[in-house]
């Protein structure tokens, strides 16, 4: 199960944070800070998996953004790596060559959180087809 998803830039600012487990606000900030530190110092040649407290963090860097997923120890890391990539592809499709600023200005609107909500629910994968998600986003946008 996915515990949380974080999108952070290299300076440590969080651009997107979605938690599937309950945490106090102060704990959330601590977690974000720690994950950022863990992830930003790793050499690109190293594995994309780090142990974090009693879980694992699977991360990937796309340009200036780090996409981090915290999952249980028993989960399949390679699968979640694919998951991150699929998410990025979907975002890319929406924004055409998505960049960090797009995420900042559109975080609340249909796009980032809603995409995420169509993609992952309750910490598990909801839909694996890019096309299906994109269609659904289109429908939702029409309602706005």
């Amino acid at each position, binding site marked *: 199960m996915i515990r949380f998803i974080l999108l952070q830039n290299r300076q440590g600012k*969080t*651009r*997107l*944070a*979605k*938690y*599937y487990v*309950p*945490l106090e*606000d102060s704990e959330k*900030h601590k977690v974000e800070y720690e994950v950022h530190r863990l992830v930003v110092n790793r*050499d690109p*040649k*190293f*594995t*994309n*998996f*780090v*142990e974090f407290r009693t879980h694992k963090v699977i991360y990937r860097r796309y340009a200036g953004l780090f996409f981090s997923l915290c999952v249980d120890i028993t989960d*399949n*890391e*390679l*699968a979640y*790596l*694919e*998951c991150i990539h*699929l998410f990025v592809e979907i975002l890319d499709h929406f924004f055409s060559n998505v960049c960090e600023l797009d995420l*900042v*200005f559109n*975080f*609340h609107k249909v796009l980032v*959180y*809603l995409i995420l*909500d169509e993609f992952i*629910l*309750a910490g*598990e*994968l*909801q*839909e*694996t*087809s*890019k*096309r*299906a998600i994109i269609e*659904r986003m289109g*429908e*939702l946008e029409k*309602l*706005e």
Partner: protein
Amino acid sequence: MNPFSSGTRLRDMIRAIRACKTAAEERAVVRKECAAIRAAINENDQDYRHRNLAKLMFIHMLGYPTHFGQMECLKLIASPGFPEKRIGYLGLMLLLDERQEVLMLVTNSVKQDLNHTNQYIVGLALCALGNICSAEMARDLAPEVERLLQFRDPNIRKKAALCSIRIIKKVPDLAENFINPVAALLKEKHHGVLITGIQLCTDLCKVSPEALEYFRKKCTDGLVRTLRDLVNSPYAPEYDIAGITDPFLHIRLLKLLRVLGQGDADASDAMNDILAQVATKTESNKNAGNAILYECVETIMSIEDNGGLRVLAINILGRFLSNRDNNIRYVALNMLMRAITVDAQAVQRHRSTILECVKDSDASIRKRALELVYLLVNESNVKPLTKELVDYLEVSDQDFKGDLTAKICSIIEKFSPEKIWYIDQMLKVLTEAGNFVKDEVWHALVVVISNASDLHGYTVRALFRALQTTAEQESLVRVAVWCIGEYGDLLVNNAGMLNVEDPITVTESDAVDVVESAIKRHASDLTTKSMALIALLKLSSRFPSCSGRIKDIVVQHKGSLVLELQQRSLEFNSIIEKHQNIRSALVERMPVLDEASFGGRRASSLPNTVSTSNGTAVKLPNGVAKPSAAPLVDLLDLSDDVPAPSSSGGDFLQDLLGVDLAPATQSGTSQAPKAGTDVLLDLLSIGSNPAQDNSVSTPDILSSAQDHKPAIASLDVLAAPSNMMDLLDGFTPAPPKPANNGPAYPSIVAFESSSLRLTFNFSKQPGNPQTTTISGTFTNLSSNVFTDFVFQAAVPKFLQLHLDPASGNSLPASGNGTITQSLKVTNSQHGKKPLVMRLRIAYKVDGKDVLEEGQINNFPRDL
């Protein structure tokens, strides 16, 4: 327009915040915005509500507190329109979590939304529920969600499925309700619904064993068929990733099959073919393919044994291990740890690759590889493996050294084939990384050294040489100082040379130099300095010519601010000056420390490791549960009996006194209870200084528990004059008081003081000569009444004592009445050793506590 009114568009606010150059500016902007929003909330402003919430969410993401917005979320959710609801739910998920009570208020709205005609709104509600519902909400809304599992729209079905996962996690009792709907979901064609249904099924099986049984019987075949169709399906652009159709679905199916097949032979059989197919046909040049292979291998390892499949799996892992991608290697190392339990041989083949991984630059890989190597060690490969690891120790990073050292020491202890190899390796480790070595490890080393009597000379010379090269590692210094103290004469005389050694010349003063530098070193801590002091004492006896010099060194610490050093310095100084006659006897060779009991004491504190073989010489017995209460007792343990309840250390001194044992010889197996360091100090405390209770605090350097017990405190009772004279006159035992040796056992006065007398009467059961029943009578000799009278007794290990309750706990004065108490003593060394017992009597006189202690040496000999 005021830029901070709630009329501001979200975009502008974001721009304003981004334009701030300092944190203070940003805080000011945010504060103004929050104020505007709060004002709008108070006015119950409808129009800009959802814009305000959007702003609030952004501010929350920046890290500012936003609790005042929570009620807004609720109001928005209750509004009829879709956009408002959407923002309301989004805010709900972001600003609240399941632990907040405000969440309960939302239950009703959510319920209505779940029943809404607009399926997008239903979707919103399901989404929010799935992400943050609490246990009560789950219980309330479960029936709605169940119904939605069969909704006509697949989008709703999949959301409902994931929502159900959360519900059963929060309220496992509801699991049964979901079994039937899930069985239907598993037959779906739509990938989205299928994958969510599978996930729900997996979680159901984890939560409820009945569900597991049901699915195992009914659905395994269907799932296998689905997987087969998926694997064989033609190119489907919608789901294609790297040439594989929907790898996520593959992986989830494999995971579910794993849960179903674990522990069940039939189910495992059904899946063998498809697993083989996936394992062989999947392409592994892309990450997606590797992810599937990884999951497949995991499944093969977990289900019931099928030789061919397992071999296949391990081959795949072998391939992964040589892949250049770090991720793949990491994953392979992980799996191999599990594979060892299944097929250790196959994993051994990859040993050299794994060793390479220990030296990798990536910390995660190093850690995994080290753990794997640790599991792989057995007697045949321990020597080369250890050599590799020790070589690597020299070049490894600081943060890795700790781990590495601990593992190496553990390996060396468990599997060392011969003592000399053990000592060599430990010396190397100590030289390289002594500061990372834990105390118990070097204690164990000392125990082994003392047991390897033919290696004493070799060891002390090797240590001497090591100290010449590096004196930085604390543990090395300590072990070396101890050995030089004990075996200094061997060092100087080059005694016990082995063929592999080069001769070295060490003079007596060289040896003393080394120990002196250990004391003088600024970095030496208390333990090292204390050990060095006592080593000097030993050397002063072994090298009489250096005695004067040693005395000077020792005397320097007379004024030390640390009590331990000061005490040692004074006491040793006085031995060197005034008590030369007993000095040599005091510091004679230490008796061989009992490995088995020491190991037993440690085994309970060692972490569990996978032991794949039986070690030889230095095997630590596992599971020997010794009471940790009396380490001193264990150290001087005489018998191999089952551990008796911990008795005070004083018993052993009595053993010495009562049993007339000669001082220790140097035989390897003798366990003669010659005084160890602690008893030594107690003797000293009687002899040269007034009895100090500080002798309690003397650390026993050879015990693993540094906090010392009243075990030693009780020894100070021996300051009773009669015994002291005996000790200082050359260790003759206190003669047993005259007692009849006739067959009828006379009663004895076991204990007598000015206010109390205790008499013992003996009897034995016929046919049971080892057990004696003692009837004790207490008489009060004073003119005050004793109240709260408690009698306690302790015996050495070869005796077993059972105390019955006393007849009363109040003793009238002047012998007007008595208290009787019956004891049963079983002597396992009946005929060889007489009974000895220590007693402790506590009572109150006029409200004041009185304590009397004593020992009974005058038992009739043949009890």
